[in-house]
């Protein structure tokens, strides 16, 4: 049990990310790669994910403005997005990506649009939660030093 209240809050926040299904065990894999040599590995990879995702989401948005839908292209974009999301353990986002791809495969334009809206919602929620989590982690500081909370 963490004596430092900030660390305890951080642990609770972390647990809720899992309990609410936002992240899966792949996120743990990222955490395991974080060490003294790479103290910010998780946040670095997640930041890379945001950059990558922003680009793909924009591509998809633009593609959805062109009628008729190019389902093959949409599916290709979503394949990329799913790959990235899965690499950081973004569970809900990944699930929504899968759904979108199924709509692409069946040529269901309406389904794609609905699914994409939902995906963007999940993605925004994830970013918010992870943002709060990393911010607290930075404030809580590394475990060894007795840093004063901001």
């Amino acid at each position: 049990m963490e004596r430092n209240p900030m660390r305890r809050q951080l642990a609770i926040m972390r647990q809720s990310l899992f309990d609410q299904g936002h992240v899966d065990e792949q996120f743990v894999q990222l955490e395991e790669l974080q060490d003294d040599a790479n103290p910010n590995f998780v946040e670095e990879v997640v930041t890379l994910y945001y950059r990558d995702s922003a680009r793909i989401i924009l591509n998809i948005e633009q593609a959805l403005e062109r009628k008729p839908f190019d389902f093959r292209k949409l599916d290709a974009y979503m394949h990329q997005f799913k790959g990235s999301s899965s690499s950081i353990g973004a569970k809900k986002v990944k699930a929504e990506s899968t759904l979108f791809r199924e709509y692409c495969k069946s040529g269901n334009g309406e389904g794609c649009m609905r699914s994409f809206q939902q995906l963007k919602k999940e993605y925004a929620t994830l970013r918010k939660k992870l943002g709060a989590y990393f911010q607290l982690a930075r404030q809580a500081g590394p475990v060894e030093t007795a840093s004063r909370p901001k």
Partner: protein
Amino acid sequence: MLEGKQNGQVFKLPKVILLATNITNVELEKAKAAGFADTVIMKPMRASMAAACLQQVLGIGKKRQAGKNMLNGSMALQGLLCGKKILVVDDNMVHQRVVAGALKKFEVAVECRESGKAALKLLQRPYCFDAYFMDIQMPEMNGFEATHPIRMMESKANKQMNGGMDEDSGRKGEWHVPILAMTADVIHATYDALNAGWMDVSKPFEEAKLYQVVAEFFKSTRSNCFT
């Protein structure tokens, strides 16, 4: 180790390890029964599994001590992998970063490329990679297509070496760099791999055993994770 020298090289036998998402037991059994993969691993890359399998492919060529080094924990693993050179080919930057992170933890020297084409440029000169991690679902050139030139180069070198003897066991030199295939769709990848001539038929029995050893290692590593 692969060097640019003509004679006296230590060669390794080919190993293909398939990394896949959501593999079911049925699919795994199919892949193993097809003699294709000794090991099928989940994508996205898990640090412990990636390193463990890499160690196995690099270790098995020298002496047939499949299980011996594996169960001594990650310290042994680190020692064996330290200094190895790996090429990671994946068009997904996030996944590439995760794979590189996992390998670097074991002090592996990692090179990354985003495409098969870019990777092939690194092979223009005799390059000393110990293994390739290849995404086989890249749009412009899938991983199997990229490995074809690698195998061509190897077989050319082997033909030149024809008649040359390996100092260890007196067998003919066989230069093959292990290729670890990463995919989200294992069944199609298995069929494609078989068609591309990737199947390693030399010792299926040993490979099934190899999988078990790796799986055991993975299990024991995981149990240490949640402290």
